[in-house]
């Protein structure tokens, strides 16, 4: 005989899970009891939202799926923001929640919440398990759904008595057959032919690369495609890292907070090849304008993305890797007109401005650029949300590493827990979380998790005693009426000290760089507080 909780552990083991992030509670206690006996490492976070962000960071930096666990009711509802974040960024995460006993479902008992109902808009799929016998099939399907097609979070809600109930035996299914779920991986041959014809006819083509290029593991293929054809690449916020920042074919991030030359190149192009991007409003404010002046090839694994935000000339539904391979094959050694190559490279050089320094303060954009080279080549930078995010997006010089942030949901407080997950997935890499003093305080409690597990991440707090991004908006669009954007900060150094984490506060780039240099040599977490002038703009 085997209990539901033991089955849950066996399912996780069968999926190769060795780390989970979570927070216990009564309804998930049977699972935690089984976990106690297992070899799976559990990271006790300080709030359930962080468990999901940590699993998110873990997923993005490993080839595995991040798993997080919470109890019923408030534990589960605390997860929602994390789940919505993973959903809007298409990150595979498995969320396991305890639920009240089956006989009590629907009676509004203690810590009961209809979490599958509440999460419906934010999950790729969800299960409320009614029968212990269903557990292996549900877990197998959940991992399959989360990691295939357009990836995303899957929620498994398990009543306490389903975890407690014992059944005869455990067998993990090796095959999945979900009749209504068969993602299409191969791009349509005819459409690929049409796409190549369009590219050959165009004079000023451009590639817009999104998060889909990274999640499909087709980054190197894209680089190859851009190199052989000479087509310039710009990326969305989620697509940063598709190419090394210094690559001659790479023009940076597009959008309202993007690089001038990236936007200019997009405007002047006559063909846009959209790869794994949904072109949300922050990337392209008026997609209808783009489709008026340019032809559009849209490649995405999710058919629903094609034609949703921008009118498409050639739609290609399929796995990015497969499609780009086919495009490379089909296009041969064709190279785009050299005139266009020279034009965009000229913009890249001419339109670059070194940010001006304000005496007595750290210039965050220059610092991020510097940090990129202090980190080892494969370093991971996690940006939070706000001005700090844009400073990082536009100035982090990515080489072989990763840039993580939440582009879709824009959840403040993402960076620290996501960096914890990233570090646990890649213990040998440098992991840096950059946040503002607003976002740092949203999940400040995770310093406890970092302390308890000695998670070696470096936290850079860009402190301006303001909610900078909103303040900037108020300056530009609300007549300098700074409503609720002044932030009186505590002494972060004392907080760090209370958690036993070393820290430093700096007022210039020279100081910051000197501290950072030493910080990267240690094997323990560190908090670097950088005082930034409140008028420093995002771009």
């Amino acid at each position, binding site marked *: 005989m085997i209990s539901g909780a033991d089955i849950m552990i066996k399912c996780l083991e069968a999926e190769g899970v060795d780390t989970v992030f979570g927070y216990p509670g009564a309804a998930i206690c049977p699972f935690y009891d089984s976990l106690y006996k297992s070899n799976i490492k559990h990271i006790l976070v300080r709030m359930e939202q962080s468990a999901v962000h940590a699993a998110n960071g873990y997923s993005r930096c490993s080839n595995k799926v991040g798993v997080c666990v919470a109890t019923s009711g408030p534990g589960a509802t605390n997860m929602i923001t994390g789940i919505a974040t993973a959903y809007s960024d298409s990150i595979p995460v498995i969320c396991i929640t305890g639920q009240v006993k089956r006989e009590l479902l629907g009676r509004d008992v203690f810590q009961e919440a209809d979490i599958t109902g509440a999460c419906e808009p934010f999950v790729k799929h969800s299960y409320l398990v009614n029968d212990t016998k269903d557990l292996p099939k549900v877990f197998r399907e959940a991992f399959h759904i989360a990691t295939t097609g357009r990836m995303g979070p899957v929620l498994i809600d398990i009543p306490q008595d389903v975890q407690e109930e014992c059944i005869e035996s455990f067998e993990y299914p090796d095959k999945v057959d979900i009749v209504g779920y068969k993602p299409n991986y191969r791009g349509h041959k005819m459409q690929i032919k049409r796409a190549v014809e369009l590219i050959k006819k165009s004079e000023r083509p451009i590639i817009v690369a999104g998060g889909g290029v990274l999640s499909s593991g087709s980054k190197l293929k894209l680089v190859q495609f851009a190199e052989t054809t000479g087509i310039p690449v710009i990326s969305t916020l989620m697509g940063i890292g598709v190419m090394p920042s210094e690559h001659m074919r790479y023009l940076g991030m597009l959008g309202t907070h993007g690089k001038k030359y990236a936007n200019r190149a997009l405007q002047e192009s006559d063909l846009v090849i959209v790869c794994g991007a949904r072109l949300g409003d922050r990337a392209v404010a008026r997609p209808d304008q783009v489709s008026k002046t340019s032809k559009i090839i849209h490649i995405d694994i*999710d058919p629903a993305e094609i034609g*949703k935000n921008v009118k498409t000339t050639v739609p290609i539904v399929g796995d990015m890797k497969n499609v780009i391979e086919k495009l490379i094959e089909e296009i041969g050694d064709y190279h785009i007109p050299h005139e266009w190559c020279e034009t965009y490279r000229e913009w890249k050089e001419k339109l670059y401005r070194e940010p001006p320094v304000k005496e007595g303060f750290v210039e965050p954009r220059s610092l991020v650029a510097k940090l990129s080279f202090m980190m080892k080549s494969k370093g991971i930078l996690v940006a939070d949300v706000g001005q700090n995010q844009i400073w990082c997006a536009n100035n982090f010089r990515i080489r072989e590493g990763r840039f993580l942030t939440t582009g879709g949901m824009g959840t403040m407080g993402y960076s620290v827990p996501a960096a914890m997950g990233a570090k646990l997935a890649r213990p040998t890499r440098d992991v840096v979380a950059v946040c503002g003093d607003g976002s740092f305080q949203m999940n400040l409690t995770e310093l406890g998790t970092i302390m308890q597990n000695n998670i070696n991440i470096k936290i850079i707090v860009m402190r301006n005693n303001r909610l900078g991004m909103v303040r900037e908006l108020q300056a530009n669009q609300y007549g300098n009426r700074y409503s609720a954007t002044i932030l009186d900060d505590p002494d972060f150094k004392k907080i760090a000290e209370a958690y036993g984490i070393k820290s430093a506060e700096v007022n210039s780039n020279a100081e910051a760089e000197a501290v950072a240099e030493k910080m990267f040599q240690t094997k323990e977490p560190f908090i670097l507080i950088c005082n930034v002038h409140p008028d420093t703009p995002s771009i």
Partner: protein
Amino acid sequence: MKYTLSVIVENHSGVLSKISGLFSRRAFNIDSLAVGVTSNPAISRITIVANGDEYVVEQLEKQLNKLIPVIKVKRLEEGEYVSRELVLIKVGCSSQKRDEILRVAQVVSAKVADVANTSITLEYSDTNDRIDTLVNLLKPYGIKEIVRTGTVAIEKGHGEAYHSGYNDKK
């Protein structure tokens, strides 16, 4: 423009809420939605009549297709399907007016589902427009209540939106 979609889904609890949630979330307007089990008890068919331009309906189809329990979505083309709706109409009437109402019912071949002293309930099944016509004819007599099932539709000839043998999907 009106569109009729035939949606084949797994017959689980919670599927309908996933689908109805999708409509409100994505601001799709639907005229009617009718659900029933198919010849395979594990599978249900939902007939949706929606209003919108080509963009809206294409998105609707794609978003429905993304839901895991949705097996197939088929847009039924104008003129290639038959559709019916069932309606129950309760008309308030005195005994003097009863004959008149019964004559209207006779003309359109509506059945009498219930007769009481001060009301008569007619049962009628036909296409959407013809139901509207009957409702208009009865309005002057004072309609007390109307219950409509929403449209169900099936393809003409031997066209099949879905062959409901559960394991037949390729």
